[in-house]
């Protein structure tokens, strides 16, 4: 899956260990006899695989299964429970699909794996069948039956959940016993259907080199009987068509129960070629990047030197001389200001032209500030109030129309004669 090399399978069934090498199948004594990374599929000798509903939270389901199995006397020694699938039914009830194996055996397998020079991924047989069930993705319950020797491993479920698991056993491999074995499988399926109130409408048969003929009920109209694609295998000089190897090809390495260190070592080896390629690519990118940046830096360096040279040249060729412009500029401003200032005569003319005949000026002050001309006029109107006041109003109005701003205006009268004081400003523009 991860590497390009074909997987190396070692399969332990019914106490016999096989090694697959290409289209050859050979019997070996132990997984220790093979070299290289290996997928080790085993029925774990006297292990049993079942589904069970236990009254406990999912966290403690394995403990409860162990207790129940020991109480029922199925094992007379300590056991280890390998959980394949756990589903919380309600707060205190859990459905579990497991393989129970004597602890002594389990640790022996682990020790063998650890002692192996290469990485070994260990798969319980029923986890392979569960993988097939999942791959079928059939919405309704399906049965997967794997027959080997005098055994038939039965798994019923959907892609999401396993409903029933059991191993049916015949006394021997005689034709009669095998026929009885198939009937036992059928009976189990029927019982499971009744127990779970469902119908198994599809049965997938997996075979091994010693599976023999298909069951008599393979023409059963109630169920669709399927067979997986078979591979040709040579064992002891005889050709066999085996579908179980296809099931193995569908298996995910994540389902292995080997210790984490074994898994890590396996994945590391599988990923090594890809990692090497990635590292080589990264190194290549670094080298290309280095040269690209070096080239860019050199280019910028040349631009920098050119710019520095240009600055030096500018400073050398055109030194900034100090130009005494302030005095000239200030004097030019003064002259411009003198030209803009209203002359005394023009101010007097404006006032004279605005002044009605009945009014006279006693005091006139014209002061030139920086930005404006300030004018103060004190005078009298020797006429009746109505004409004096109207005349004064006309006087100030005329001056404001000529650009003067009225800053202060006072008008006092004793009816026969009136006095006024007017302060005006005119901006110098």
């Amino acid at each position: 899956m991860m590497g390009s090399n074909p997987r190396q399978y070692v399969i332990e069934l019914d106490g016999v260990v096989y090694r697959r090498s290409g289209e050859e199948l050979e019997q070996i004594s132990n997984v220790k006899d093979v070299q290289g990374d290996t997928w080790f599929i085993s029925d774990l000798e006297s292990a049993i695989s079942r589904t069970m509903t236990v009254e406990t939270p999912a966290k403690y389901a394995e403990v409860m299964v162990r207790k129940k199995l020991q109480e029922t006397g199925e094992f007379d020694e300590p056991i280890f429970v390998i959980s394949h699938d756990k589903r919380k039914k309600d707060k205190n009830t859990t459905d579990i699909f497991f393989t129970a194996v004597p602890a002594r055996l389990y640790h022996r397998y682990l020790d063998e794996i650890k002692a192996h020079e290469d990485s070994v991924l260990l798969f319980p047989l029923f986890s392979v069948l569960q993988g097939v069930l999942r791959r079928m993705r059939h919405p309704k319950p399906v049965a997967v039956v794997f027959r080997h020797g005098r055994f038939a491993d039965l798994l019923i479920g959907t892609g999401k959940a396993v409903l029933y698991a059991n191993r049916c056993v015949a006394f021997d491999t005689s034709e009669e016993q095998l026929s009885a074995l198939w009937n036992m499988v059928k009976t189990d399926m029927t019982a499971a259907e009744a127990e779970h109130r469902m119908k198994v409408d599809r049965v997938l048969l997996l075979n091994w080199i010693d599976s023999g003929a298909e069951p008599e009920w393979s023409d059963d109209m109630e169920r669709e009987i399927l067979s997986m694609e078979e591979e040709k295998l040579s064992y002891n000089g005889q050709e066999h068509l085996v579908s179980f190897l296809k099931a193995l090809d569908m298996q995910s390495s994540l389902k292995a129960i080997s210790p984490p260190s074994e898994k890590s070592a396996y994945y590391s080896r599988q990923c090594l070629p890809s990692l090497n390629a990635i590292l080589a690519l990264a190194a290549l990118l670094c080298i290309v990047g280095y040269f690209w940046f070096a080239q860019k830096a050199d280019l910028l360096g040349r631009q920098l030197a050119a710019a520095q040279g240009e600055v030096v040249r500018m400073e050398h060729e055109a030194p900034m001389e100090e130009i005494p412009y302030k005095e000239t500029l200030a004097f030019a401003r003064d002259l411009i200001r003198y030209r803009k200032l209203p002359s005394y005569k023009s101010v007097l003319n404006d006032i004279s032209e605005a002044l009605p005949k009945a009014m006279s000026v006693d005091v006139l002050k014209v002061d030139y500030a920086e930005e404006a001309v300030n004018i103060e006029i004190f005078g009298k109107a020797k006429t009746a109030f109505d004409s004096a006041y109207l005349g004064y109003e006309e006087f100030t109005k005329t001056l404001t129309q000529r650009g003067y701003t009225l800053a202060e205006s006072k008008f006092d009268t004793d009816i026969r004669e009136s006095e006024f004081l007017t302060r005006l400003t005119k901006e110098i523009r």
Partner: protein
Amino acid sequence: MNQDKLRATTRQTRLLTEHQRALAQKQSTLNRIKGFVDRARSAGVKRDGWAYYNVNIEEPVPFAEAEQILRQTANSSSYYFKPIMLHVRANIEPDVKAPPKTASAVSGDSPDTRTGDVLLTLKGAFVVNRR
């Protein structure tokens, strides 16, 4: 290391380019100022080429003379007049004498014995190009 060099070089180039641009702008401004100063000087706008003649009058004067004085206190083609202050007071008593004389008056008359229609107080300066 190359990254640092690249960053430093980029920053230096940018700063130098900005410096170059600022220098060019400064030079352009200086050229314009120099042009202005040259034109102003060639047109005679130069403080040391002009004379200031201060005027300070404070005396009673007849209307006619006041008008004559005021007519002169304006810009002309040969000089500028810088006005500072003008105070005019009418209806002065005939026996009122003028205050103590002021510095250089435009009029050459002696103010001590004079009477007039208005008391004129005038300050300013003629600014004349010496050529």
